[in-house]
């Protein structure tokens, strides 16, 4: 894939993000930070990619550490978001009962 195609994808994605995030209600800005932070752990794929064709021990070790910290980011991030979003939930259930 050439650079210009990648750049096009990058910019179009940025536009999608722009319109989505402006629509988000301010009361959910904290979960937004937390969820998007967890999703940014997708960078773990980069470590997989390097690991896939790495022969040396040094590179494997670095990749191991990279996967480890990205994994803490992903799982910790989603678990924290879950805790935050749970707080926004019970009130809705009551609303439905009414």
């Amino acid at each position, binding site marked *: 894939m050439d650079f210009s195609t990648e750049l096009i994808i990058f910019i179009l994605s940025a536009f999608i993000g722009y319109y989505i995030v402006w629509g988000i209600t301010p009361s959910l*800005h904290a979960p*937004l930070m937390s969820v*998007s932070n967890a999703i940014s*752990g997708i*960078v773990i794929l980069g470590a997989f990619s390097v690991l896939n064709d790495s022969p040396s021990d040094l*590179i494997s070790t670095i990749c191991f550490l990279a996967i480890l910290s990205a994994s803490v980011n992903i799982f910790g*991030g989603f678990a*924290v978001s879950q805790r*935050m979003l749970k707080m926004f939930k019970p009130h809705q259930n009551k609303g439905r009962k009414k």
Partner: protein
Amino acid sequence: MNIYSSPLINLAIACFFILSLRGLTFPKSAHRSNILGIMGICLAISISLISIRHQFLALSAIVIGAIIGIYISQKIKLTALPQAVAAFNGLGGLAAFLISCSAVLEENSDIIDTPVSAALGIFTFSGSFIAFAKLQGLIKINFHQISQTINIGLFFILILAMLRYAYHPELIYFCILSGISFILGISVTGRIGGADMPIVIALLNATTGLDSAVIGFVINNILLITTGALIGVSGMILAYIMCQAMNRSLFSVLFNPKALQTETDVFDNDKIIKTASPADAAFIMGNARKIIIVPGYGMAVAQAQHVLKQMAMLLIKKYNVEVKFAIHPVAGRMPGHMNVLLAEADIPYEYIFGLSDINNEFSSADVAYVIGANDITNPLAKTDATSAIFGMPILDVSKSKTVLIVKRSLSFGYTGLDNPLFYADNTLMLFGDAQKVTAEIVKDLEHQ
């Protein structure tokens, strides 16, 4: 340098992430956004795990990381949410930096993308951990002595090192640019504190996102580019919204935090402070028609949101008072901090209002109940052009007939500024822990 990825599966994962963020538009759909995000990332990880070599190594790292991450997230207190987000964000940056390092060591990496991703990654890492340490209270000082010229100078050296590396891709230049970026993370974040903190957190969120995108360029992975762009933009918009709420530009927050006043000689002993007991406060509130509650970081620290809800409900049901909550965009230490806590206490959304929606209602309110908030109500922002917060939109609590301020002591807000509101004629101070004071008010309201 490629892992197996089918374009259609990548498309599906990207859609999961887009829908996940979209789910946060309304509180009703918010709970599904986390699940969509988890589904997306699980799909991405499992698809690539199937196809790569060294699966066992990768899988064991993931499992160990998952155990650590979930353990930390369950163990932290709710007040520690901002620093938890900062810490996890820092680890994301560290991961991106390590990936760039290994790509460089592999010696077939791109000479432009890789240094950028390494610099962004290590900047995010050191910046996030300074932010974490500040929020956790491990570091109390601000590095004000680091002048902005040094930061800007470091930034230019960083650019030069990158250019140098692009022409002579030697390891030494890579080390230099990483080191400078690491220091830059510390020195930029180190100077920022207090009400500027939400901006820093949002900005560091953006840098991790952008870094994922840059790594996507390094390894030619469309999914990383798409996701990184989404998150980068999201973080930048959040930072922009926070900046607007403080009437500052992003540049001035990063490179030129306004000089804070020295903390000596600000207190004038001649100023008269009127104090009130919780019983007085209960009497005033019980006879009011309209009360606006202004929560701040102090409420988060004291965990006063539950008892605050009791108070609000009692006032509404027993005394027929109109109660509203006013939330300043930068109240607390992360974007939307107060909303999370009020939601935890199960306070209905229809009682909660943002700055612009409620600010002209203070003049018709009988009581403004300020609990643990300081700088966001400080009239100096309007009157004193020399003050650090001049120009920041504030909640006009002083326009209400009576202002009740719950505070532990007469200490300053995070900006270190005195607050003339405390000495105003219509202000009554209630000294004490936000939770205890409010609990006593609730008791008095019940017996009145």
